[in-house]
């Protein structure tokens, strides 16, 4: 093998990624069969399915960033968001479908971080699809047991005086973290602030960007 390794490298020197031309799995076949039956029986159409995929792909962390930035700048909205995050985000104009959302506020005293140990529950209807690591066994199992170590690996080192609250998204609710507003942003409007709000800061594995790092 040591002599033929160059066969596996592209002209730029990177290994080729293996083709994924393996047979369909049981559940892939099941999904195709159910989808085709639903179309055949007139329950839905291919166009409707594509429209739903487009709608989900159009959702992205910028939606959440707009919500967070408004909570930072509009005290009445912040109160509404903490009381009923589903209603507050809908009132703001986001189509979150039937999602039941809880907003968790980070402060100097408390740092919230969200995980789903059972599967990969994530506020997709607001933030779009989750990052791959969110679904990994390592993130799911370690975050409830050693959250500070996991956070440190994401570059978030918290003082002992800050309490860490892990939220295991086990059932019907979904969670979005409101990161702490960075210092040095007095007088910024919501649009400018939204650029500081990262996807990870709304999961709790990151902090909002600071003005000098943005």
């Amino acid at each position: 093998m040591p002599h033929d390794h160059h066969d596996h490298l592209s002209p730029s020197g990177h290994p080729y990624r293996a083709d994924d031309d393996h047979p369909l799995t049981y559940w892939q076949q099941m999904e195709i069969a159910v989808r085709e039956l639903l179309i055949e029986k007139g329950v839905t159409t291919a166009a409707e399915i594509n429209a739903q995929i487009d709608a989900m792909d159009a959702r992205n962390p910028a939606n959440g960033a707009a919500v967070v930035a408004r909570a930072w700048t509009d005290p009445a909205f912040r109160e509404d968001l903490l009381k009923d995050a589903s209603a507050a985000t809908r009132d703001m104009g986001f189509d979150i479908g039937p999602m039941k959302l809880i907003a968790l506020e980070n402060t100097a005293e408390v740092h919230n971080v969200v995980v789903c140990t059972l599967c990969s529950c994530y506020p997709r209807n607001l933030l779009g699809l989750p990052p791959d690591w969110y679904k990994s066994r390592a993130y799911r199992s370690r975050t409830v047991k050693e959250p500070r170590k996991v956070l440190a690996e994401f570059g978030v080192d918290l003082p002992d005086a800050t309490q860490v609250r892990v939220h295991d998204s086990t059932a019907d609710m979904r969670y979005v973290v409101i990161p702490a507003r960075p210092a040095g942003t007095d007088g910024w409007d919501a649009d400018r602030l939204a650029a500081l709000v990262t996807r990870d800061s709304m999961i709790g594995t990151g902090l909002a960007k600071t003005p000098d790092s943005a």
Partner: protein
Amino acid sequence: MSAPQFMRVRADMPPGHVRTPAYLRGKTGWVERRLGPFPNPESLAYGLEGQALPLLRVRFTMAEVWGADTSHPDDTIDAEIYAHWLEPAEAPHAP
């Protein structure tokens, strides 16, 4: 503020679809807030009608879940647990 309401998660290990994480079974926490009712996912998973159940957010200390020698015993874990998995309990320690 009223006194915290302590609840113990049943320590059962039934087969089938359950949305109560195994690492919390037998552990005691306090009610953070009440939600629901939501249909029981243990029935929904099999195409049956789920009985509407209260869902409670229960907060546990790291000390309760992982033992007193865990690195930050006062950090917490919140989880949503359906009412039929919970029974009233005494405080294991100060919340």
